[in-house]
């Protein structure tokens, strides 16, 4: 993919730099607390600029969805929030992201990732038992003592609505579970570290509708205890689960608002075109 030619790029960059800022001032819903706050974030893979001046808020204990066509930068943005992009060579970020007012680039990376957990597109359980998968995070972080770990595993599995299905086979391999169960296992594994924010990168893209519905129910329950950011290809899913929705296009955040506004009354033509299926 080519970077856009300089003239229109600077034009749009300017807009997306100022636009969400205005939004934050104008439309910041009453009573919402900012959990994560990005300001003027640029992202480069080598010479290719994948994100252009993203500025936005993720509100505490709310579900925020990112939608947009493939390659629009929504997953890239998600991966900057817990600095998972750092494993990629040549990836470079400038701009600011604050977690509860703290600069995430100044935090110790493993401390950040304990606070901002992540679930991936395809279920990726470790080739270990169900129990050891859940216990992995607390064990490596030394956060739960030896005797407490059993209760902690149970509690995490309950939070992910998986306990009843696996309580009799905790010591079987996690590979024996179905795809949907594996994905909930991965959510439970992330929850076991007690993250404040949970990033979900297209968590249902490899699941059937029933498994998808279970994950969506789960997202709904989790938002009491956790801030959730979800990237999805499925617009209906965003409409169903998210309180706020951001629309990405060609590395820019075109529009960010209440989910109902985005889907019923978008301010931008591009958003409307995408929502109504005129492209993408």
């Amino acid at each position: 993919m080519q970077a856009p030619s300089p003239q229109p790029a600077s034009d749009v960059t300017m807009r997306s730099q100022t636009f969400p800022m205005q939004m934050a001032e104008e439309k910041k819903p009453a009573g919402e607390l900012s959990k994560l706050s990005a300001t003027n974030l640029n992202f480069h893979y080598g010479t290719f600029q994948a994100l252009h001046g993203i500025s936005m808020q993720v509100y505490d204990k709310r579900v925020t969805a990112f939608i947009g066509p493939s390659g629009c930068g929504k997953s890239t943005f998600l991966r900057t929030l817990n600095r998972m992009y750092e494993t990629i060579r040549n990836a470079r970020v400038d701009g600011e992201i604050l977690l509860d007012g703290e600069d995430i680039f100044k935090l110790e990376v493993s401390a950040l990732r304990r606070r901002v957990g992540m679930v991936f597109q395809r279920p990726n359980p470790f080739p270990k038992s169900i129990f050891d998968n859940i216990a992995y995070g607390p064990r490596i972080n030394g956060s739960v003592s030896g005797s407490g770990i059993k209760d902690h595993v149970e509690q995490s599995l309950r939070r992910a609505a998986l306990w009843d299905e696996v309580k009799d086979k905790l010591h079987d391999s996690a590979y024996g579970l179905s795809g949907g169960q594996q994905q909930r296992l991965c959510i439970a594994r992330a929850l076991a570290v007690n993250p404040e924010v949970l990033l979900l990168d297209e968590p249902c893209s490899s699941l059937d509708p029933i498994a998808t519905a279970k994950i969506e129910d789960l997202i709904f329950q989790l938002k009491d205890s956790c801030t959730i950011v979800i990237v999805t290809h499925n617009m209906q899913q965003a409409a169903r689960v998210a309180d706020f929705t951001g629309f990405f296009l060609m590395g820019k955040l075109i529009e960010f608002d209440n989910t109902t506004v985005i889907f019923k009354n978008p301010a931008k033509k591009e958003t409307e075109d995408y929502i109504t299926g005129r492209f993408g």
Partner: protein
Amino acid sequence: MLSLRRKAVNAVMLSLTGVCTFVAVGTLLFILGYLFVHGGSSLTVDFFTKLPTPVGEPGGGMANAIVGSAKLLLIATCIGVPIGFLGGVYLAEFGGSAFSFVVRYTTDLLNGVPSIVIGIFAYTLIVLPQGHFSTLSGGLALGVMMIPIAIRSSEDFLRAVPVSLREGAMALGASKAKTIFTVVIPAAKAGLITGIMLNVARVAGETAPLIFTAFGNRFWSRGWEQPTASLPVMIWTYAISPYKDWKQQAWSAGFVLLMLVLTINVTARMILSKRGHAAR
């Protein structure tokens, strides 16, 4: 007409590939059968428990050579496996592209060095300064032979571990080192063990590097610093001797060595296939 030609070409090629396959498999079966008939038939308990007898005296065995081979392989494993394994970890997980290329190229060259040259290397390094042949120098020669394959097989098996597992661990706050030791290596364990076993099996039959390092011994070796008998060198000495019963002993030794190598091979393959079954 054309279809007739096509059928004829098909028949010729099919028989050609079939014959070649048969030759390849047949050679192995022939060697196995020949060794079994000549060596297996005269194999006695004495072969495993007694020392070689002087020329002309019937009976005796090669207990010292069996133990010698085991000692040599133990030293070789202690040298080749840690270096090869950690080198493989480096290449798979940390190596920069340019440097890794050089290392891989060098290991391939080392792998191509004739085994007798490796023997001379160990001879120069240990035997010359010490002034006498030793078990240690033989083990070193075999160990050096193990390094290139150990590096490459460890690297391959570590690389085969999906990126998604590494990401899963790092997203839970695991450092790179912790990810490697708690997720990547355990996930590759079966492959790594198989690689080591196949490597041991490969050097078990090496003769040339032992001729002027471990040398050979008609009696029990008096320690790691002293020369020792080994099965391959024993086979060589006995097979070129003019005595009929020695030649018979060489057949038996060949049979035992082949069985040893075959057992290691089959066990290694079984570990790998069983593991592959459980993981998928």
